[in-house]
C-alpha cells in the first residue's frame, strides 16, 4: 500500500509517519502543502507538528492549504484519512471531524506514554486491535483537550465514533488517566462514515519495540487490512 503523508510548513512528524509506514513494509511519500494532488495515495496521513507555527489556533491556517482541498475530495470519495496530533486538530478545523481541541486543562504541554481503550473495534482504524487490548502510545501536545457540544458528543457515542479513550493501566476510564481534560476522556474519534479518523496520541512513535512500544502498529495494520480487502482506492 502507498500512503501520502502531508508536509505542511512546520509539520515535524512527517518523517516519523513515513518511517512508521516503511517499518510496516509499505511505502509513503511526502506531499507538499502547495500541491493540489495527493499523487498515487491509497490512504492519507496528516502528521503531527506545529503547522504554520500554530500561532492562531492549532490547524486553523493549515486547513486553507491547497493540499487540503485534495484531502477533502479524497475523504468525500471514501478514502482513508488519519490525522495524528496536529493532524487531528487540522481535520477538526477543516470540518472533516466534529468538535475541537483546546488547551490542555493544566495549560502545560504533555509528553508521556498513555493507555488507550478502544471504544469501537469495528472501524477501518481499529478492527485489527485484539479484543480488550489496551494500547500504550505516547502523547506530545499542548492543545489536546477534546471539546464538543452535548449534541455532538451524543452523536459520537450513538454512532460508535469514539475510537479511543484515555484510561489507566487496568483499562478504567478515570479522571487521573486523562492527561488533558478531554470530554469523556476522548483521545481519538472518526467521522460518521468511518473513513476519517483523528487522535492526539502518536501511533507513529509506537511502531517499534526499540521505542518502547509497538502498540501503534495495530492502528496502521487496521488501515492496511481495510485497504487490502476493499481494494486500493487511488486518489485523483
Amino acid at each position, binding site marked *: 500500500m502507498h500512503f501520502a503523508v502531508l508536509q505542511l510548513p*512546520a509539520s515535524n512528524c512527517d518523517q*516519523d509517519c513515513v518511517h512508521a509506514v516503511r517499518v510496516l513494509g509499505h511505502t509513503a511519500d511526502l506531499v507538499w502543502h502547495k500541491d493540489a494532488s495527493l499523487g498515487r495515495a491509497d490512504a492519507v496521513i496528516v502528521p503531527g507538528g*506545529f503547522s504554520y507555527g500554530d500561532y492562531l489556533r492549532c490547524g486553523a491556517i493549515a486547513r486553507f492549504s491547497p493540499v487540503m482541498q485534495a484531502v477533502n475530495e479524497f475523504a468525500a470519495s471514501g478514502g482513508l484519512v488519519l490525522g495524528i496530533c496536529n493532524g487531528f486538530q487540522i481535520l477538526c478545523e477543516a470540518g472533516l471531524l466534529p468538535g475541537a481541541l483546546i488547551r490542555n486543562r493544566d495549560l*502545560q504541554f504533555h509528553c508521556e*506514554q498513555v*493507555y488507550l481503550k478502544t471504544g469501537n473495534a469495528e472501524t477501518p482504524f481499529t478492527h485489527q486491535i485484539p479484543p480488550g487490548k489496551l494500547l500504550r502510545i505516547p502523547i506530545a501536545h499542548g492543545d489536546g483537550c477534546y471539546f464538543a457540544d452535548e449534541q455532538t458528543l451524543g452523536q459520537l457515542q450513538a454512532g460508535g465514533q469514539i475510537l479511543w479513550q484515555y484510561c*489507566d493501566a487496568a483499562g478504567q476510564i478515570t479522571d487521573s488517566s486523562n492527561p488533558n481534560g478531554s470530554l469523556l476522556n476522548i483521545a481519538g474519534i472518526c467521522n460518521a462514515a468511518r473513513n476519517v479518523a483523528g487522535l492526539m496520541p502518536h501511533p507513529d*512513535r509506537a511502531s517499534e519495540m*526499540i*521505542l518502547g512500544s509497538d502498540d501503534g502498529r495495530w492502528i496502521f495494520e487496521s488501515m492496511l487490512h481495510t485497504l487490502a480487502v476493499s481494494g486500493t482506492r487511488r486518489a485523483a
Partner: protein
Amino acid sequence: MSSAPPLASNFELLPMIDPAITPELVAKHNLTPDEYQKVLEILGRTPSYTELGIFSVMWSEHCSYKNTRPVLKSFPTRSPRILVGAGEENAGIVDIGDGLAIAFKIESHNHPSAVEPFQGAATGVGGIVRDIFTMGARPVAAINSLRFGDLGNPQVRHLFSGVVHGIAHYGNCFGIPTIAGEVYFDKSYEGNPLVNAFCLGVLRHEQIARGAAKGIGNPVFYVGPATGRDGLAGAAFASQDLTEESAEKQRGAVQVGDPFMEKLVCEASLELLATGCVAGIQDMGAAGLTCSTCETAARAGTGIEIELNKVPQRAPDMTSYEIMLSESQERMLIIVHKGREAEVKRIFEKWDLPWAEIGFVTDTGQMVVRHNGHVVVDVPAKKLADEAPVYHPEARIPEYLTAVRAFRLDGVPQTVDPVPDLLALLADPSLASKNWVYRQYDHMVRDGSIVCPGSDAAVIRIKADSIPPMSEDLRAKVTPFSGEKLVAMTVDCNATYVYLDPYEGGKIAVTEACRNLACSGATPLGATDNLNFGSPQNPEIFWQLRESVRGLAEACRAFDAPVTGGNCSLYNQRGALGAIDPTPTVAVVGLIEKIEHVTTQWFKDAGDAILLLGNVVNSADPLQGLGGSAWLRVARGLKTGSPPPCNLEEARILHDGLRSLIRGGSIKSAHDCSEGGLAACVAESCISQLIARETPRLIGATLDLIVIQQALKDGIRLDAFLFGESQNRVVVTTEILAVGKVLAQAKILGVPAAVIGRVGGDHLRIQTEIGQFSWALTDLHDGWWNSIARAMD
C-alpha cells in the same frame, strides 16, 4: 570636538543623527580607554557611531573570549575522530563511522533568561539549533542544563516556569526532542539563573559547511525574517554584571523567538546546501549581521561589502547602528557561488521565506557597510574578528576556602534515623525527579528516542532520515546508510563541589558525565563545556575559573573526550546577591556499539543480584565523602567541606570495566552513585522506571551491608556509609547465575566489586551493623516524583 584623530578622507560624513564619540559614549559601550585606543590604532581615525557599536559587541567577552582565551588553551581538542575542532567554526564535528558525523555544542542564554525567562530561554534554544544547522547538520537532539534559586521564592518559581516553558515552546515547535538535562536549585542563582542549551546534529562528512566568505565577487545573501530593533547588542549585555537597572533597561535586548520560522529556515538552508551553490554560510546569532559578516570574511581572508538599504527591515527608519547590532532571530548570511543566485531564490520562495542579495565578497580584507549612500563602516575584518584584546586577569585563592578546607565532621551530629533522611534527600528539588520539567518537552519527536529522560544518559538512534538532504552527485557517490547509530548524551556539573574546590569539582563534572555514559553503555566521543562564572575582574572568581578549567581539561584527557567547542558566560552576578557558584557545565557525547549494550538505571527483575562496583568509601578522604554532599546540605544545612577527591585513573578503569561488563551481556541495570550516595542511588534504581502516565514500575531491594561495613578497618559513620558521595562507584544488577562470572570479570578488569543485595519486594531494606532500615517504595516514590510539581502548584 575631542582631540581624537580626524576622519580619514575617504570616509564620508555621517548624518547628524549619530552622536559624537565621547569618552562617556565609549564607556557606555563597555570599551576601556585602552581598548578604545586600540580601535583608534586599527582604524587610524575616530570610529563612526556604528563602528563603535561593532567593536563593542565583537570585543565583548561573549564574542571574543578576551578574558578566557589563554585559559581555554589548556583543553585537549584533538583526536582522530575530530573533523572540525574547537574554535574553527560554529560547532565542532566528530566522526561516528560509516561516513557519518555529529555536530554538537552547548551555549548559554543566562542574562536574557534572567530578565525575560520565556523568550530568553526560547531564543537560547533557537541560537544553538542554528549553530548546528549552519554546519550543514540536521538537528536531532537537544539537552539543557538549568540553575535557579530556591523554589520557595515566588520570583524564582516565575523564572523556572518561564524558562521551562520557553525551552518547550521553541524545541517542541521546531520538532527536536529535548531528551536530557539537569536542574539544580541553589540560593547562589537567585538573581541570576543559568540556562545552558545544547544541540546535536547529524551529517555526512561530505556535507560539512563552512562559515567563510570565499570567492571574490560572490554575492552575499540575507535570508530569513526582517531585521527589527529587538535584541539590540545582546552580546554586550551578556558580558556585564546584571543590575536591577540593567535588567529593566535591557529587557529590550532580549530577542523574540519564532520556532516556526526557524524550522523553515533550517529546512530551506539544508535544501540549499545540497545544491552545492553555497560557498559559505553563517547564522546571525550574537551581534547579528556584524558578527556574521566580519567573521566570514576573517575566516576566508577576504573582505565583504554590504548595503543596508537592501536588508529587509521590520521597523521604519532604522539606523545603521540598529541594523548592524540587531539580534533579530532566525536569520542567516549565505555566500553563494556567482551565477547560481537563482537557486537561492527558488528554494527560499518555495519555503515562503524572505531573502535579499545584500552585498558581495571583496579582496580588500575590509568589512564595508553602506547605508543611505554613505559608507558607515570600513574596518579590517580580520583585526575586528581576531585581534580583540586578550587579558590575563589576576587570580587569587578565595578567602572562604580556608574554612572549607579546615572543615571536619567532628562537630556534625551523626544521623539518628536514616529513614527520614533518605526521604528528605529524594524529595529535595535538586535530587528529585525532573518529570515536571521534561514532561513539558517533546522528548520523542523524530522517532529516535531510545532512552528518554530519567536514566543516567539519554540515548538516541540515528537513522537514514537524520541525514540532511544530499545532492544527486553525493547520493550517487556514497553507500546509502541503512543502519542505525546509537548516540548517548548527558550534561553534568555539581557546582557545589566546584565552589568548594574548583579543581576537584571540575574533574568531577567531566568524570560524572563520562560515568553516566559508561552506565548507559557508551564510550565518550567528545565534550562541550559551558563556563558560567561571575566577573573575571574579581581575582577570586578568576581563580575559580582557572582552577576548574584545569580540572576539566585533565579529566577530558583522562577519558579521551576532547573538547569540541563551548561557551563562556561571565559576569553572572547581581548586586548584593553576589556571584553564582562557579558552574562549568559539561555535556559529553558518546557512542554505543550495539542496541544490546544500551543499559538503563532501573532494576529489572526480582531475584537479580545487586553489585557495587568501586570502593565503598575513599579511605584517603577525612570527610568520608560527606564534604559538599547533599546529605550535609539537606539534613544539616551545611554547604562546606572539601568535596570527595576524584582519582581519574581509578575512574578510567571503572568506566572501561563497566563497558566491558555491559558488552559481556551480564549487566541488566547500571546507575552511578552521585548526590545522596549509595542509598539514593539504590532507591532511584527501585523507583525510576516509568511505564506510562501515573504508572511507575516500583521494584524493591534488600541490601545487606554488614559484611562490607565490617571490612572497613577505619570504620565509617552511618550517614557517610549510606549518603556519602565518594567518587567512582556504580550500582549494577545481574542475574543471580551470572554473579560469579561478573565478579571474576571485574577482578580481571581491576574493578572492585561486591554483591550487596537482591532485587525484589515492595520495600527498600538496608541492613547495617547498626540495624535494619526500611522504606515503602510508594513513600520513596511519592516525594521523589512529586516534590517539584508540589512546589510549583
